[in-house]
Structures are given as C-alpha cells and as structure tokens.
C-alpha cells in the first residue's frame, strides 16, 4: 500500500508541476501577447487611472481633470475650451486624442519614460508617473483678441514671434468645447455626431489643417523672389507691365481691381495689389526660382510639426507659364495654411530667416522638473536680409498708403499685405479675405509679432469681403495685444 500511496503522491506532484508550468506560460511567456490584445481594457483603464497632466497658457492651466469614480476614472476638463480648442485638441475616452493632447500624450498621461526619476525605475517599482505638464508659447491676450476679433465669422488667426518661431496665437472659428468629448457616455456620442455633422466644421483646425488660396498675400513671396533674383532692382522703377495682362500662351487677359497698374513700380503694385504686375513678375522670375523661394518659405514641406502635424501648403512644381502667372498671385493651385502665411510674414520681419514654428515652450514633470525645452529651431534663409528690409518697407507702405490702413494702430510700426482670394468653380465661391502683417513698437529693435488672418464667410455678400476690410482689423487687435504685453 505504501508504494501505491507514493505513486499517487507522484501523480499529485505531476499535477502541481503542470499547474506551475502552465501559470509560467500565461504569466511570463505569453503575457505580452495577452497584454497587447485589443480586447484587453487594462491599458485604457491605466491611461485614465490618474489625472492627466495639464496644458498651460501664460502660467495657468487651461485643462483639468475630474474624478468620475467610474472604471475609466479621470475625465478631461477644459477651461475656456472653445478658445483653446485649436491648441489643446481633445482627449476623449472614446475618440482618442488630437493636436497637443495627441502629440504630447505620453507625457500628459505619464507613460513617457523621460518622466521617470531614473531610467527603468518604473519597471522595477511598477509605478505610474503622474502626468507631466506642457507649457505652451501661447499669449493669452493675443489668443483672446484673435478669438474675439473673428467673432461669429469663419476663419483662422495665427500669430508668431518672428525672431523665435513661437506661436503666440492659434485660433480657428467656429470652435467647439473639447470637454464635450472627454467622457464615454451617450452624451459624448451625441456631441461627436453633432460636431462632425455641423455645417461650420467646428472641429476643423483652420489655422493649421486647412489650406486656402492665399491670393494677394502670396505677392510677398513673389516680390521676395523678384528682388532676390534681381528681376526688380529698384522698387520705385517702372516694371514695364501691361494692363490688362494676357497670360502667356493664352488669350485670357488678367485685369486689376484698381487703376494705375500699367507699368507701375513694384512699390505701387505692392501697395495697391496689382495682379498684372505680379503675374508678369512671376513669369519673369521663372518657375525654378519661384519654386525654390516658395520652398524656402515652407511650401511643399509635408513634415512641418508644431509639434502636431500641419497640413502642407503647396506651390505647384510643374506648370506652364500661364499657370505660373496665376500661381504667382496666389491663385491656381497655390494653397497655404494660415500658419504658412504667418511664417512668410515672420521671415520678412526677421531679416529673411524662417524659424520653424513651435507651440510647446517646455515640458515638465508634475512637480516642475523640466523634461524638455524647445530647442533652437531649424533655420532657413528664405531671402537675403537686404530683400527682407526692402519688403518690410513695401509692407509698411501697404498700411500707411495702401490697402491695409485698417491694420494701423498707435505706438507701433505696422507692415502688412491684404489679400482677397477667389475660389470655387469659375471663382463663384465667396472670396476669402486675408491679411498678413507684422508690428514693431517704436522702441523695439525688431518686429515682435507676425500675424496671418483669414476670414471665410459664406454668409457675407460678395464684394464686401476684402482683406483690408475684414481681416486687417482682426490682425491689428492681435498685434496690439502682443505689443501691449511686450511693452
């Protein structure tokens, strides 16, 4: 009997070994596959198990977290949600994350290994870091001025600090409250459906994700190319351009909204936005040089990140001369985001140097230790400093003598360029009103702000829309807000 008992005991030992081997299989060798299984809710639960780090504007958080006590415990909240929505994006338990919430997600939710005190420390303690904080470059006053300035009209505003590339304002209208999408209840699904179906596309970030025909504001690029290439040597000399101008190789003729463009000087043509002069200049400069200049300003670059991705602005690289003529006045297939046009303006204000725009000044851990700071951003010389200086002069003229008078305000030198972009089949759509400009206080050594404003308003009567009338006052308010803070 003893032998049989021992054998039965051996059977029990065998069962124990089977259990241990199988447990090792599940818990060690196959644990990765189970952990990564899409039906496993643990990563999601962990992600929302602690308050998300905050996004700061002007030292104050514009976000927060709310303890719901549910399985996905903390929900995102937003202070001034619609105002900052084009900056923060949303952080939804159902629909994921967008914009800064997306680009800085590992930092905000605490999973970024850089948040750890020591490398691999959290692998040992199995702790989760509290979410880090994102300090933005946004100027609250400028942001608010831009938001208020656009009001109920559709459009976007981008303001940059020319010397650094810091994004001071990033506004898109109409906007939405990202807090509506934070949770996971039926109201969130309803808000999602409503926002996606809304005619005004409130979740579209027009400042960086929508491209528009830049219209006359693109003449800044064309003028830069012409001056740099030596096609125009004296801004006050006649340009020998006809009015109307027949597009090369076609019988289509191009005319102007204003008089006096025939054989006008570059200064006059710039101040009064002569299409004929700039169409001819573009053709005279040639496709290759136009293309290179546009690329130097940032056109045709699909990799722009601030840190979230920006829709690439485009300037066609293969065109006939008629198309080149139209492209040179910001029509045909030329398209630009408001951010791109702000970069063009900033380059002019910054001696021809394009700074890569950025939105995140600094990231820190929850207790304030710096994780990363905005490094010295990439530089690109889009034009010679001389050309930049002459362009600044031309842009000053637009505001003092030309179409941009509405951008003027006391205490600062303001340069700008208006634009009214035709679009739609046969240019039937309501035109977009543009204004790009920069401002420099009288006691400052260089311009402190560059801004691009686009107003698209389907409800306005055609002809009432114009860069000088609709967009310039918004730009003025934004620039004044920035300068007030600086002064």
């Amino acid at each position, binding site marked *: *009997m*003893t*032998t*049989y*008992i*021992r*054998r*039965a*005991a051996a*059977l*029990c*030992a065998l*069962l*124990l070994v*089977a*259990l*241990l081997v*199988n*447990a*090792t299989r*599940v*818990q*060690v060798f*196959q*644990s*990765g*596959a*189970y*952990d990564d*299984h899409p*039906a*496993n*809710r*643990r990563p999601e*639960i962990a992600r929302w198990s602690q308050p998300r780090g905050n996004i700061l504007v002007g030292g104050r958080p514009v976000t927060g977290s709310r303890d719901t006590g549910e399985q996905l415990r903390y929900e995102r909240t937003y202070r001034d949600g619609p105002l900052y929505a084009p900056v923060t994006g949303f952080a939804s338990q159902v629909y994921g994350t967008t914009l800064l919430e997306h680009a800085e997600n590992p930092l905000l939710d605490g999973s970024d290994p850089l948040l750890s005190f020591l490398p691999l420390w959290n692998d040992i303690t*199995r702790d989760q870091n509290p979410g880090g904080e994102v300090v933005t470059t946004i100027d609250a006053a400028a942001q608010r001025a831009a938001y208020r300035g656009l009001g109920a009209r559709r459009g976007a505003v981008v303001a940059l600090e020319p010397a650094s590339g810091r994004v001071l304002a990033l506004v898109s209208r109409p906007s939405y409250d990202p807090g509506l999408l934070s949770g996971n209840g039926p109201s969130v699904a309803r808000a999602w459906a409503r926002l996606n179906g809304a005619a005004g596309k409130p979740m579209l970030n027009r400042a960086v994700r929508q491209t528009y025909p830049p219209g006359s504001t693109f003449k800044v690029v064309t003028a830069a190319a012409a001056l740099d290439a030596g096609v125009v040597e004296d801004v006050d000399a006649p340009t020998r351009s006809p009015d109307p101008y027949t597009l090369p190789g076609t019988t289509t003729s191009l005319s102007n909204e204003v008089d006096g463009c025939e054989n006008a000087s570059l200064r006059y043509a710039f101040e009064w936005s002569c299409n004929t002069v700039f169409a001819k200049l573009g053709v005279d400069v040639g496709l290759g040089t136009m293309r290179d200049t546009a690329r130097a300003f940032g056109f045709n670059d699909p990799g722009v990140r601030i840190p979230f991705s920006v829709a690439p602005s485009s300037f066609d690289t293969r065109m006939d001369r008629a198309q080149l003529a139209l492209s040179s006045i910001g029509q045909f297939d030329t398209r630009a985001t408001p951010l791109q046009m702000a970069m063009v303006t900033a380059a002019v204000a910054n001696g021809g140097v394009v700074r890569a725009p950025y939105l995140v000044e600094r990231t820190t851990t929850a207790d304030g230790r710096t994780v990363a700071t905005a490094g010295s951003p990439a530089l690109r010389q889009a034009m010679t400093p001389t050309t930049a200086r002459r362009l600044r002069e031309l842009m000053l003229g637009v505001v003092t003598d030309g179409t941009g008078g509405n951008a003027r305000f006391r205490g600062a030198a303001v340069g700008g360029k208006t634009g009214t972009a035709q679009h739609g089949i046969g240019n039937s759509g309501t035109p977009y009103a543009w204004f790009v400009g920069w401002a420099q206080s009288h006691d400052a050594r260089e311009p402190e702000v560059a801004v691009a404003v686009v107003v698209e308003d389907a409800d306005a009567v055609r002809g009432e829309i114009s860069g000088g009338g609709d967009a310039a006052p918004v730009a003025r308010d934004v620039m004044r807000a920035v300068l007030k803070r600086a002064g």
Partner: protein
Amino acid sequence: MTIKAGTTLAAGPADPSPPAVRLPRRRGVEFSLVVVAVLLSVYGYCAVGLAKNGTVPPGAADYGAGLGVLALLAHLAVRLRAPYADPLLLPIAVLLNGLGLVLIHRLDLETPADRAAPAQLNWSALGIGLFIVVMVLLRDHRVLQRYAYVSVVGALVLLALPILFPPVNGARIWVRIAGFSLQPGEFAKVLLAVFFAGYLAANRNALAYAGRRIWRFKRLQLPTGRVLGPIVTIWLLSVGVLVLERDLGTSLLFFGLFVILLYVATGRTGWIAVGMLLAGVGAVAVGRLEPHVHVRVEDWLHPFASIEAGHGPNQLAQSLFAFAAGGLLGTGLGLGDSILIGFAAKSDFILATAGEELGLVGLSAIFLLYALLVERGYRTGLALRDPFGRLLAIGLASIIALQVFVIAGGVTGLIPLTGMAMPFLAQGGSSVVTNWIIVALLMRLSDSARRPYDDARETGA
C-alpha cells in the same frame, strides 16, 4: 458483506513498522506559524487599503482580531484534543482562509453594492467552529468506518437534494433555505471519501486477489461483481446525479477520488487504466453531446472566439488577461483590474485576482501551500497503520489536490473550465465549512499517526 472496524485481512508488504521513538508534539511551532499566518493576512488587508485609499483600513484591527481569535481557538482545541497532530496543517488553513478573505474584501471594494467578505468571515467562523467540534467529539477516526454506509446514504441524499430546487446559472447545485444558499455537494465530498475509504479498507483484498482473469498473459483481472458492484454503483449514482445537475467539476473530482483510492487500496494498475479509458470515452461523448459541456470545451480551445464574434472577451479570456497582467511580480494587492472578469470573480475566478495582484511568484506560493497541505495528508496516510485511516487520509488530501488542479487548471486555460471553488480561497460558505472539516479530519488522522503507542499510559501516569 460486513465492515468491521480495524479489519485488516493482511498487512501490505511495504507497511512501515511502528515508530520506535516518540515524536515531538511541535505545538509551539504550530502556534508561531498560526501567528505568522494571521499577521500575513492582516498585512494583506492593510496593503489593499493602502493601495485603494492611501490609508490603513479602519477595519484592520477588527479583522485581525477576528481571524486571530478564531485561529487561536482552533489551536487550543488542537492542543487539548490532538496534541500530536501535524503542526503545518492548521497554519496553512488559516493562511489560505485569511488570504481568501483579503482577496474577497479587495474585490468587494470594486462592487460596493455586493459585499461578500463579511459573510465569508461568518462562514469561516462556522467552519472553524465545526473544526473544533470535530476535534472535541471525534476521539478516534476509526469510529467513522462504522458509519460508511450511513455516509453514503447521506452523500446521495445531499447530492440529490438540489434537483428539487431551481437551477442557478445553468447548474442545479444550490439549495436555498431561509435566505441561505448551500451547496450540498461540497459536504457530500467528505461523506463519499469516508465511504470509499471504509468500503475499500474492508474489501481491498477481495478486490485485489479474487475474481476472473480475462486475458491469460495480461495481468488484467476483473474482481468479482459481488465486491465491485456496490462501489461502482455508488460511484455511478453520484456521478450520474452530478451530470443531471450539470456540476461537471464535482463529477470529475469524484471520479478522480474513486480512481486514486481504488488504486491505493488494490494496486491494480490494469483496471485503473481501463477505468480511465472508459472515462475518457465517456468524457469525449459528453463533450460532443451535452451542449453545456461542449461550450466549455470550445471556450477552452478558443478562449478568444467570443471576441472575434464581436461579443467582447468572455470570463476565461478576461481571466487569462488578468493572469498575464500580473506577470512575474504582480501589480500589488488592490492595484489590478481582475474585476473585469465580472460574474464569479470572487468565487470560481478568485485565483485570477491572486495571479494578477501577486504575480507568478505569489501564485506559485499559493500552489505550494496547497501542495504542502496535500503532502502532509499523504504523509499522514503513510504513517498511519490502519487501512481505513490511510485511505481516508489519502482520500481527503486527494480531494484538495484534485479540486485545486481542476479549478486552477480551468482558470489558467490548462483544462476546460468547470465551476468549482478554490479551497479556502474562494467565496462560498459550504466550501469553506467543508474544507475546515477536511482539515479537522486530517488533524485527527495525523494525531493518530504520530501518537506513540504508550501515550495513554504515559499521560495516565
């Protein structure tokens, strides 16, 4: 056919000789280990509170005092009534019971509307009370052999009882009386073990050596129907009733118990093999035909089928996720998400919480505690001198071993899942009470095994 107490027709060839020296009682060791077990449980309780709320839970002192007093009473009963009993059995039972309470309490925090830990503590108290009753009333285990047939009648009645009650979650294993839910099948386990041990102890030689050979050159030999008949009938009856009640885990347990005891009693490997073969054929047939079983087998083979079908992860998939999430070291008590398993997270799937929050390390420790419990039972079986006692010890230990294997293997995807309670750990009053009775009987048996022959005279002097 009669069963006489202490009947031994012939001693087995390998039976050990009586111990020559007096074994130490080791009650002090038991006491220390019980204290450690209680402290470990309180520590776990505090760890849960710290992880969930950041504070030591206010009930920690009450919980520790409750468990401590219960354990101390049990220890005192052992000191008085079974001074030679194995010193490891009680501490292991206290630790597993305490750990189970911690895990259930931990899951209660996720389901504030449905608290199970207080009831479980009451059931544990009842279990320990019965442990003391057994210690006090049962002075000699051999008395039980007289009640072998009473036991089997009782077992069959208990097994048949739930048929009169409505099924719960597909299984008719519950009896509801005055607001209490009981699983009579749990108690039937002990009674059947007593019957098997008593019957086999009385008839094992007749079973082993009488009967017809069916193949001359093979060692296969069938015992006479007269001897084998009753026990096979009882076994078939109990398994049949359980199949009717759809309690597959327990039928598997009874089959295993029967096979192990038959083998230990007779040593006939041949017809154990035949029995296993028949059982295998039966299992395949049931697996094909019975839809309830078929589903379990399919779930085992394809645990993620419900996800692919768009219904979300089923319990087994969630259980596997929980074990995997624990990894080697676990998330720490109170920090896992095993509540995702949902229904039965505190009972059948309690091990998943242990696996997730204590990791492979903690899970292995729990397995080893069970292994130690079983090993002490088997050691008692080896040391005992009477066949009934030996078979009873082996039977009780095997119940624990098989039960742990069936349910632990089920929730980790080793074998098809069958609903069963993890001994001491899982939520379930009937189960915890039965397990305390099993431990009490093992204590009584080990006391007999280790008690010196001349103890009576010595203590009388």
